[in-house]
């Protein structure tokens, strides 16, 4: 399983002798690029070798080697294996690495994240501010020497829990019953957030200038954090001229919990239920991505029946996600209840199955390394068949009859351009938004994982790239999911559901792995570095919502403010994975 995907097809080291060397650490793959020639190599990677999509960019803090590393994962939108290269800098502040935003615009937020959480300064980045933490936050949380509030131990399980586990609350250890720590010379009474100034000045820097006509004042409007259209606590600062959006910057992190730091404290298995909480509509897909990554690292097979169960669950999850998307889009456009509740009805029936099989409607925690947690009982299998063969196809048709030709809806959506293909790829947009722009890039086909190469299905594709296409492609995808489900349900074999013995302390060999799946919202990637211990050394999530949001500014500038609400809905963001 691991071999075909990890194979490198280009030899960067031969192309750039002296500047690039092949990775030599065991368990690692790809190339190491000298940071002085990073931009030159990156440009060649894009223009000569055709790796046009920057999938993931993240930093790793190798504190023992005194190095800070940035890892780049590249794909071709025409499919095929990925290319990994990395660059290292000495771990002495300021750590400076050239920014690749001029080459892949999709790096913008990912570099800001690496700057925020690891303190890597990307020189040449247009807008290097903190992104998940607030401006003025002390330290960089993902560094290995940074400790969180109520820090107990480096890794779980904590020794205080057993055998002398007398319960106590974490804050009781502190005489003040809290863990408030101020930087030196800081007075909370006189605090004025400086980050806001940076935000507004960045808005000025990037907003487009109006041409000719009457001289008008620009108004800065803050949408959110509690704006109903944002599906959670996202704040968007917008400069407006009249009703036209001239500049836009999302502000996020209100739901930030440092999922990655929690993951690095956890054992490999313990991360599984935490991944449920990323994109909480699709815990099955999140589990899938994480399981695929760790299995790649462990190099273990997956039980045959479990593979089918995984695909069935992931596709059911996709259908209910798209149903909710449609319901919520219409909700954002102003039709409050009917379509949303029609969509939720089908979703409920799917969640009933998840509940009966996995034990929970949304926080499924169903996948294990090598298989799934428990078998699908015959009764539930029948229920899935009932839904897939007898109900969902007709209900999707009904949804289309209800909405597709509705003049108000069509008027709002048709002809409002979202993204063209070049921009979508440039901004690392994945998932339905990319496919609606006319790029047939679906990981299930481009780089098949699990058993997706066995099924006959089409990659949903639309060409206009307007909002109506973005809306229609969700129906196409649901139909394709149903096709996969029909085949999977017919082919599913009997047998064991896990290739491994149940084990709560899995052995993961040292190395790195990047696993990715086609989540309903786009490419969901996990980058895990193991040192052979019971917990990952580095655990990074590449959430589709977060990376897709990079393109929001590009999508909205020049359009009307009311379209912003619909455009944001088109990205189908979920704050659980956006803020992590």
């Amino acid at each position, binding site marked *: 399983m691991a071999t075909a995907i990890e194979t490198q097809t280009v030899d960067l080291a031969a192309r750039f002798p002296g500047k690039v060397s092949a990775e030599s650490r065991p368990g690692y793959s790809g190339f190491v690029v000298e940071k002085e020639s990073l931009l030159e190599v990156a440009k060649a990677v894009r223009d000569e070798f055709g790796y046009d999509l920057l999938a993931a960019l993240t930093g790793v803090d190798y504190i023992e080697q005194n190095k800070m590393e940035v890892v780049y994962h590249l794909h071709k939108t025409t499919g095929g294996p990925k290319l990994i290269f990395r660059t290292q800098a000495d771990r002495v502040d300021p750590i400076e690495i050239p920014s690749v935003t001029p080459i892949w615009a999709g790096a913008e937020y990912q570099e800001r994240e690496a700057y925020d959480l690891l303190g890597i300064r990307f020189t040449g980045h247009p807008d290097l501010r903190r992104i998940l933490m607030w401006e003025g936050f002390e330290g960089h949380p993902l560094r290995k020497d940074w400790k969180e509030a109520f820090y107990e131990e480096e890794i779980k399980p904590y020794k205080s829990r057993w055998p002398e586990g007398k319960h106590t609350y974490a804050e009781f250890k502190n005489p003040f019953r809290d863990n408030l720590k101020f930087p030196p010379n800081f007075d909370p009474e006189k605090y004025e957030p400086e980050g806001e100034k940076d935000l507004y000045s960045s808005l000025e820097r990037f907003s487009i200038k109006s041409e000719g006509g009457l001289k008008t004042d620009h108004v800065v409007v803050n949408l959110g954090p509690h704006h109903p259209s944002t599906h959670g606590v996202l704040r968007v600062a917008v400069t407006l001229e009249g009703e036209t959006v001239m500049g836009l910057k999302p502000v996020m992190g209100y739901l930030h919990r440092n999922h990655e730091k929690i993951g690095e404290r956890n054992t490999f298995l313990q991360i599984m239920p935490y991944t449920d909480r990323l994109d909480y509509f699709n815990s099955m897909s999140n589990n899938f991505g994480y399981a695929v990554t760790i299995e790649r690292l462990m190099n273990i097979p997956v039980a045959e029946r479990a593979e089918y169960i995984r695909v069935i669950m992931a596709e059911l999850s996709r259908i209910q996600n798209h149903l909710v998307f449609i319901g919520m889009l219409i909700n954002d456009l102003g039709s409050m209840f009917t379509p949303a509740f029609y969509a939720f009805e089908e979703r409920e029936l799917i969640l009933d199955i998840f509940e009966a099989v996995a034990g929970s409607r949304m926080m499924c925690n169903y996948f294990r390394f090598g298989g799934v947690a428990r078998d699908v009982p015959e009764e539930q299998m029948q*229920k899935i068949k009932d839904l897939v063969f007898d109900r969902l196809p007709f209900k999707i048709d009904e949804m289309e009859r209800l909405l597709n030709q509705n003049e108000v809806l069509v008027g709002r959506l048709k002809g409002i351009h979202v993204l063209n293909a070049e921009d979508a790829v440039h901004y690392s947009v994945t998932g339905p938004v990319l496919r609606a722009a006319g790029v047939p890039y679906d990981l299930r086909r481009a780089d098949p994982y699990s058993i997706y190469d066995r099924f006959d299905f089409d990659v949903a594709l639309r060409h206009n790239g307007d909002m109506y296409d973005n809306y229609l492609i969700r129906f196409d995808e649901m139909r394709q999911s149903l096709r996969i489900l029909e085949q999977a349900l017919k082919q599913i074999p009997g047998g064991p559901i896990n290739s491994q013995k149940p084990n709560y302390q899995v052995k993961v060999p040292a190395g790195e792995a990047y696993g990715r799946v086609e989540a309903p919202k786009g490419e969901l990637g996990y980058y895990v570095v193991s040192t052979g211990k019971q917990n990952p050394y580095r655990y990074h999530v590449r959430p589709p919502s977060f990376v897709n949001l990079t393109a929001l500014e590009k999508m909205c500038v020049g359009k009307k403010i009311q379209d912003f609400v619909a455009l944001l809905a088109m990205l189908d963001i979920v704050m659980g994975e956006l803020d992590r």
Partner: protein
Amino acid sequence: MYGLGILKGLSVTWKRFWDTYIDDISWALTGKKRYRTEEGIKHRSSKNTRGIFTVQYPEERLITPEEFRFVPFLVYEEKDGKKEPRCTACGICSKVCPPQCIWIVRSSDPVTGKPVSTPAEFYIDMDICMNCGFCAEYCPFDAIKMDHDIDIASYGRSVYNLEKLLKPVSYYAEIRPLNYNAEEEERRAKEAAKAARTAAPATPAA
């Protein structure tokens, strides 16, 4: 014609509107109750459901599937009127627990001071528990299981101690009959195998 799409959509809502009556009337004519009966709720969450879909909580409740999991409890067996927890204080649940909300104090023999395989104290911080079910999944003694009781909201913090966590085997058998029977069967098979081994003399060493 402008407005045709809206009319088409309205025909769907119109059909849905009549469906509510059709189902209600046909159920009434056959003398079955669509509401507040298990049969009715089951029908409403089947593929044939149409019309009113809502389950009127709290008068009605969805049927809890066996695998449903919500906060753990400890299983005890009744022996001579005494509660004997199955738990051996091995600590696997507290080690596997992702948010580390399980706290166990192992008993020790008052005379020798050696550890005894029973918990002296057992706490689960229900405010922290994320209902992942790992403790129940990896417990080798079937001693900790996931509950079905969801009404545990309280005004204070809820750290459950041993007394509050213990529930009888009969309760476990009631909420999870299939799991319980499967486990019992496995245990009986194991005991039978063990009995067979002890009854038959060990094969002489070659």
